[in-house]
Every structure is written in structure tokens, then in C-alpha cells.
């Protein structure tokens, strides 16, 4: 099962390498990894999407906690957080039996952020399943290029990770 882990780390040289080394060295898998500064410039927040049994997940959380630069580790999966990925999709401006590509983009909640006579770039955001359905919907038009960020996640309600 996929798990989403929020990690607060010191915003310091080499921290990302330490986390990456831990995952590769112990054979843990990384589906996606997002890292950026928080409101406190001394602290960065990582969102790691990983897969493994409960025992493996327990180890991932514990091993992350052992890194001296790691401030907090929280597996947010069970709390049904808001998950968001941003995707950019380049598609040709064509019409097929299924309809017009710009209509399909609108229908999927996307926004055209660039366009010329031949193709356009559409921006989508949503959770993993949303992004997969975007891909399915646009595939028939012939996707020229696809790029997505890693997932970020936030717990609902007043709970915060800080």
C-alpha cells in the first residue's frame, strides 16, 4: 500500500542526500519526493510517497527519525489528507471522434497555460487518481509531453505538522 510521509528537516547542505541514501541503502522505494522550504527558512518540508508493508513503513519512519537533521516524521496516510500533484501536459490541437482537445482539457478541470497553432500546454492539479484520469482522457489526442511534480499532502482540520 502507498503511504504519504511528511518530514520536517533542517534546511541544510546534504540533508536530501542523507534521506535519499537511507532509502536506497535500505532498499525502500520512493514513488515521489517533494522538498521545499517552509515559512521558517531554517526548515524544509519533504513529502515522500512510498510503498511497503506495515513493518517496512514502521522502519522507514523510525530510520528517518534517526537522522540527526530530521525534526519530525509523520505518516499522514491514515488521516486522509488533502493530496495535490501538479501536472503539465503538452497535447496537439486536434479534434478526434471523442471531441475537441481544448474541450477535453476544460472538462477535466485543466487550464491552458500556453498555446500556439499546433499544440498547447495544459495545467492540471489534483490527487494521484485525478492525474491518472487526465492522462486517460487525453491519451487519445496523442500526449506529446507529460511532466508532474511529486505529491504534497496536508492534514484536514486544525492538526498541523510543525
Amino acid at each position, binding site marked *: 500500500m502507498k503511504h504519504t510521509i511528511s518530514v*520536517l*528537516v*533542517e534546511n541544510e*547542505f*546534504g540533508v536530501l*542526500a*542523507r534521506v535519499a*541514501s*537511507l532509502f536506497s*541503502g535500505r532498499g525502500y522505494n520512493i514513488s515521489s519526493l517533494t522538498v521545499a522550504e517552509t515559512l521558517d527558512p531554517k526548515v524544509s518540508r519533504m513529502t515522500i510517497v512510498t510503498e511497503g508493508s506495515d*513493518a517496512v513503513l*514502521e*522502519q522507514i519512519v*523510525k*530510520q528517518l*527519525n*534517526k*537522522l*540527526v*537533521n*530530521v*525534526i*519530525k516524521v509523520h505518516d499522514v496516510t491514515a488521516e486522509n489528507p488533502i493530496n495535490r500533484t501538479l501536472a503539465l501536459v503538452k497535447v496537439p490541437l486536434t479534434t478526434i471522434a471523442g471531441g475537441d482537445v481544448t474541450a477535453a482539457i476544460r472538462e477535466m478541470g485543466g487550464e491552458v497555460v500556453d498555446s500556439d497553432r499546433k499544440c498547447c500546454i495544459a495545467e492540471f492539479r489534483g490527487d494521484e487518481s485525478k492525474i491518472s484520469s487526465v492522462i486517460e482522457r487525453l491519451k487519445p489526442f496523442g500526449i506529446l509531453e507529460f511532466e508532474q511534480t511529486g505529491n504534497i499532502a496536508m492534514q484536514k482540520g486544525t492538526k498541523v505538522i510543525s
Partner: protein
Amino acid sequence: METVAQKMKGSDIIIKSLEKEGVDVIFGYPGGASMEIHQALTLSKKIRMVLPRHEQAGAFAACGYARATGKPGVCLATSGPGATNLITGIMDAKMDSVPLIAITGQVATTMMGGDAFQETDIVGATFPCVKHSYLVKDINMIPAVINEAFYIAQTGRPGPVLIDFPKDIQQQEAIPDFNRRIHRPGYNPDIAPPQKPILESAKMIAQAKRPIIYAGGGIISAEASEELRKFVRKTKIPITTTVMGLGCYPEDDPLSLRMLGMHGAVYANIAMNKADLVIALGVRFDDRVTGKLAEFCKGAKFIHVDVDAGELNKNIKVDVPIQANVKDVLREWNDIVKTGDFTEWQTQIDGWKKEFPHHYKKSSKVINPQFVIEQLGKLAPKDAIVSVGVGQHQMWTAQFYGFHTPRNWLCSSGLGAMGFGLPAAMGAQVAYPRRTVIDIDGDGSFLMNIQELQTLRQEKIPVKCVILNNKYLGMVAQWEDRFYKSVRGHTYIGDADFAEIADAFGIKSATVTKPSQVVPAIKKMLAHKGPFVLDVKYPYDDRSHGHVIPMIPSNRTYLDTILIGGTTLRDYWKKKGILKE
């Protein structure tokens, strides 16, 4: 008292900071990127600099120092190959939770990233081997980094910390602030013992009928041997130790079941697997202890105390995990724990002890290595420190020497690094110049850091080296005999006259080839004031009694134990009608 603030060179700030941490010896090998630090060391009145003849030996010596004293050991090397040569020693410290400070020189910050001469990203190369590491790019951070490095190396679960100092940082000048500290929000090793699981575990101990203590290196790291002894005396629960735990409880005590695991005592492994409660203290359920995990201690409940949460439920799911300093938990148990009567259990165990003692087939023609070790255990002073390499001699020493006090046994247990024995003994001897320190080594292991004989001679370090010399890489040869039809896959290394080699280094030596020569030679060696090399020549024996026995083959159960004579415990018990299948 701090003197008036004045500018100091980075290298001098490094040495001053190390002095403030109480460092009294550094094992260092100079080079282009670390010679500034060595220049500063020449001015230190508090720190002795011991020059090993290889950086790996410097790291092992620092490990030996740390294992024998409990204080962090410090090694120092230059950039590039100097730094990479430290890695084996750093990993040894990681695997066995040894407080080690590894200091490396680095090319100047202005050169870094350009593949300069002797440039290696040692911080990057050692991520999986360290507890923490630093690349110091600001001279003003030197005191705070060194202070924190020592704190991290010693607290919580101890481990190695590496500090990389670029050459220009060593050469710059600044007014040092020795009171500066780093704010580290994510590192808090001071954990209060959790009350709920302590009470719950005390209840389990009270209800147990066949409990056993499985104690390891955590007891020694936590300096909890006294509390453990008190606990055993109070509860009368039998105790077995891991190879890392040797010495945490006296092996000559009736409640001691000595070492367990692959080459552990048969009775210890039987008792573990017949127990209804396993009290695991400062251990990590290593595969050399558990064998096949699914079959390990099947009928038992587990209490597991460890300071590292990562060890709890890692290899085996336990009933009561307790993340705490094992010393705190033992103290609390000693106040509250009540137990039943274990007379019946102890009688059963005593039966196994009588039936399956550690023993070997004595020969009058050739020397038995086990006999040499047994005699060393009898003849050496009680407070002697013993180090080993890795292989058959290491396991025989664990089986036959007899360890009764903590920190007298230096063994690369988790990493299993050959070449550890001589430099580790050297480190311990520097820490305790007046005690007897013996390196019981194999010929293969000894050869891996044999250059340190020169260090012994030049630095007047009186280590006694006993080389159990059978011309083979015995442990691998033993596996070849057991599992590869005795096909020798490059396990014959040939003979060397180690006495003559010692002689060439100016070290006293002797060679023995007959059993009758052993005791007099040991006596002579122990009486000698300086370093000594005793070459014990004996033939490798490919039959069962030349092997380290008992042996539980990898990933098998205690019933698969190969006993003296070659039969398995399973077959032996079937024949006796104890086991029906």
C-alpha cells in the same frame, strides 16, 4: 579560564576544541590536507599523537580505544585515500555502536568539486556508515561542530561521527568562540523510561515459568552491567549473551549460559528455544543469533529494551517493545519485579549444560587452537583485554577464553572486519598502558594490518600478539568443508614465519609447534615487558573437530545445530527418543 580573545588558526582551534572534549590520544596519519592539524598537534600538551602505519589501522585503533574505555576514540586522516581508508573502521563503529570521531582533511573549499588532487567527497561516501557527519566550511563553526560531534557520538545509541575540514578552513584565522552551540531540534537522546510497558513487562516476568535473558552490547554501551547482575541475582533468571555482550555478565556464574547463536553454546540455544519469555536487552536479533526467523523461539513472548526505536520490531515482532536506556529499565525492574520459582527450569538447563559442554578433541601431537585460548584465559591477568580478528580464532576465543567483565573483549562483531585485532589492541593498550592487552589473531587477519608491528615498536605499545597460524582462511575453509565438498576456493594462504617478521620490526617473538610448548611460551610472553609475537603453528583440520563447533548453519534452527562429532541435535534427540517426527 578563557584568555583574552585572540586570533587562532583553524587547525589550532580544532586541537583546542578536541582538548576541551577531553581527548588524550589521536590515531592519525598525515597528508597534504591534514598536515596543518598535525602541525597544531605538535604543540598540544594534552593529546598524544599515535601514528598508525595505515589509516584503516588508525580507525580500528580508535575503535579499540573506545570499546575498552567507553570514551570516544579519535582518528585522523588526510583527504582522498586517507579518508577512504578510514571507512572500514567507521563502518565497524556503526555496526557495533562504538563512539568514534573520524576527522578528515579536505582540499580547500576553493578547489572542491573540481576533482582536485586527493579530492574525495568523503561526507557523501560515508552517508550509510556514520551516525552523523559534517563538512565545515566556516572557521567560526569549528568549536560548535566538534562539541556536537562528541555529544552525538556518545549519546543515545553511540556511533561514528565524521568531520571533514577543508585545508583553507584549517589555515584561516579567527577569534574562536568555544561556547558556541548548534541548535538541533531533531536530536534528543534523553528519553525517560516509559512507565506503562515497564509495569506490563514486570507482570510478564512475574508470570513467566521459563524466562531467559538475552543480553547484548547495549548493556555494555549503557554501562548497565551492575544493574544486570543485580537483576539476575534477584530474579534467578538464566542469562545468555551475544558476541557483543560478552563480559556484561560473568561467564563462570551458574546462571550464565554463555554466548548464544551460530557458534554459541548448545545449551544457550536450546534454552532460548524452550523459553516462554525472552527478555531481550540491548540486542538486535541479528541473523547470526536468530537463524531462521520464523522458527526462532516459537513458543516465547518477547520483551525488548533498546535505546534505538529502530531496533524494536525490526527483525522480530515483540510483545512489549520498550524504547529506553536499558540501565534505567533494569533499575526500575530491580525495584518492582517479583518472580516465581525457576528451580525446575534451572535444573533442566543444568542438564543441557552437562550434556552439551563447550569442548574439543585434545591432541598430544598437534596444537589445538582452543587449548591455546583456554590457557590464555587461565594465565592472563583478570583485567587483561583481548582483541580478535575475524574467523575461526574469533569464535574459539568467544567460546573458550571466558569473559567476566565489560570492555575486556574487543571484537568486530557486526561488520566482521578482518585486520581488526592488532590495531584494536593497540588502541586499548594506549588507553591502558599498564594492563595486559592480547591480540588473539588468525594468520589471515593478522596479515591485514601487520604493518602495525612497527607502530608497537616505535611507540612502545606492549601488545601481545598470539597468531593462530594454520595457513588457511579457516572459517571460509570450514564452510567449504561443510557446504562445498571441501573445494578450496582460494582459502589457502600459505605459511609465514611471523616470529621472523616480528624480529625484523625489532619485536620479541617465539614460535610453537607442539602442545607441550604452549604454556611455557604463553608465560614467557606475558612476562615480557614490551610487545611480543607468539606464532602458534598448527595444521588446518578439515574434519569436524578442526571446525568451529557447535554450528547452526545459516538460516536454520537450533535443531540443525552441528554437534561435536558431526551429528545434528535433531538426530541426536531423535535417537534418544526426545524428539519425535
